[in-house]
């Protein structure tokens, strides 16, 4: 089974952004990991790849690919969403994608993040309005 065709499907699902800032999902080598996570789909993924191969998806221009994939989505409801959602979980954990979003391309720990303390002056007005709890005769 050609992962080149799978990459074309992934690139159609999350393409390179128009401004070039965000990489396309087909260029990140996510195919093997996606296959592993979708192993419970059985032959459905391979059947879709085979259909895409027969249709010449890899040679189509981007808009034509999208039309073809929407046709597959209509004929096999559930398949494209399953692949897409799984792809999102992989794509948005990629260092290249995180960097493109302006985020640190690392796990949160141990670097952590700086966070401003905020404007505590806004609570002066709340304090000035006085107690608001009910007495219980304690």
């Amino acid at each position: 089974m050609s992962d080149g065709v799978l990459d074309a499907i992934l690139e159609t699902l999350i393409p390179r952004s128009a401004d070039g800032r965000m990489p396309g999902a087909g260029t990140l080598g996510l195919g093997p990991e996606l296959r592993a996570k979708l192993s419970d789909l059985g032959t459905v993924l391979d059947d879709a790849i085979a259909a895409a191969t027969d249709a010449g998806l890899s040679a189509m221009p981007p808009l034509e690919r999208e039309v073809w994939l929407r046709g597959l989505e209509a004929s096999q409801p559930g398949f494209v969403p399953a692949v897409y959602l799984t792809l999102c979980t992989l794509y948005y954990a990629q260092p290249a994608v995180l960097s493109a979003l302006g985020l640190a391309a690392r796990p949160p720990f141990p670097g952590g993040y700086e966070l401003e303390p905020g404007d505590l002056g806004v609570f002066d007005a709340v304090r000035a309005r006085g107690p608001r709890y009910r007495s219980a005769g304690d």
Partner: protein
Amino acid sequence: MADEVADVVIIGAGAAGAAVAWSLAETRMRIVCLEQGGWMDPSEYPTNHQNWEMLGLGPFGFSPNTRARPADYPVNDDDSPIKISNFNAVGGSTILYAAHFPRLHPSDFRVKALDGVADDWPLDYATLEPFYDQNAEMMGVAGLSGDPAYPPKEPTLPPVPLGRLGDTLARGFERLGWHVWPSDSAIATAEHAGRAPCINLGPCVTGCAQGAKGSTDVTYWPAAVRAGVEVRTHCRVREITVGGDGLADGVVYFDAEGNEQRQRAEMVIVACNGVGTPRLLLNSASARFPDGLANRSGRVGRNLMFHPYALVTGWFPERLEGYKGPTGCSLISQEFYETDPSRGFVRGYSFEMLRGDGPVRTAIQGAAGRVPWGSAHHDAFAERFDRNAGMVIICEDLPEEHNTVTLDPELVDGHGIPAPRIHYRLGENSRRMLEHAVARGKEVLHAAGAIETEALSPLPPAGWHLMGTARMGTDPERSVVDAHGRSHDVKNLFIVDGSIFVTSGGVNPTNTIQALALYVADHIKRNLGNLFD
């Protein structure tokens, strides 16, 4: 081990078990705590990993039924719109909690007297106040003094930073003239008791890799163990046994190798929370207690209270840096906390403001069509990523006897112990309260600048506050334990967890659970000489 008699056996090493163990340790009594989970390894928490968002949905998810860790037991919550959330480990559910740490209000202890519903507690805020203070020091509570929603109290540490998101939300409340205040949070915002300060990792609810969040494995337990308390992990108690004199004389438990063991004890303290405690008591039925241990009142397992939650989310035109900072701790609003009958319900609720989603969670909103695949993907993602903030709404739940924890007739855990079964219906008062709260939540988010809002009410996975199923009271016919947490029926049996709550209040219960545990421990220490007379 089989012949040694402990002075005290504590069942459960969570929020309450830790506090009572630490407090009693100074007596030098031989104290053994049996915990069905183990010690957590912070290096396993999701924030150590690149794919932290997805790891948070698996082994560190909320539901024991889907998480299925070795220490989990199944819970039949099919007959409840709110699903049970708990965690078994040294630290218990504090491993996964958001560390939001408010106190109950004085009025929460006098619901019957003030509002004519539910019951009054056999103690009051003033009685519990010194134990709230003691707990604040041990857990390390960050906050801001001067909150007019409470009697005066002093936080231990500076408030959790608000960041751009908190500032944005606070302005919304201020535009409406509503109460809002920095959350009381069990998070070390500065170095405290040897713990490193918070570094704003984000998802506190999947475990704190930094150790700044106040889970009891890093707060009470180190001190309790140094003082001589023995914690036996991976030990699941099957039943509490009673001798011929009607006193509890120990427990039967499965050890880490799965072998049945017996630990005899002079005193038994149960700290298994609102589902685990009634389950254990009901599984400890005997000829003397055919309806379950300490259940002559018939109230064990009854009056289950959650906090019906709603989630209200707003999307804003600007980026909020919401992926930074403790996810559940920034601001709290108690504008609608105290009863106002003109609203159409009694009692009230809190807004607890939430930080935003990471990139994966933002993207998988595509399931609802918001971030589509294809040529429109990136623009839609950019409109949403780092632009959401919102709140959970915590509604007070009234005690109703038909809301119960019983034993499932078929489902058992890995040791063959009958599992708990939940029966729960959302009350009419709660429905009206949720409706009011969702509308107000959307109102304040729009006031803060949100261009779009949505709500989910009630929130199904929000069964993480478990209360009322072994309630306190002065009447042995209508309560399970007395004002000092002691069973009316078994003089040397104490319960110290959320199951002893009489009412739920409209705030997270952990601070109050621990204050009660400290209060009960204090009573035990003061009366050791004649405790069982």
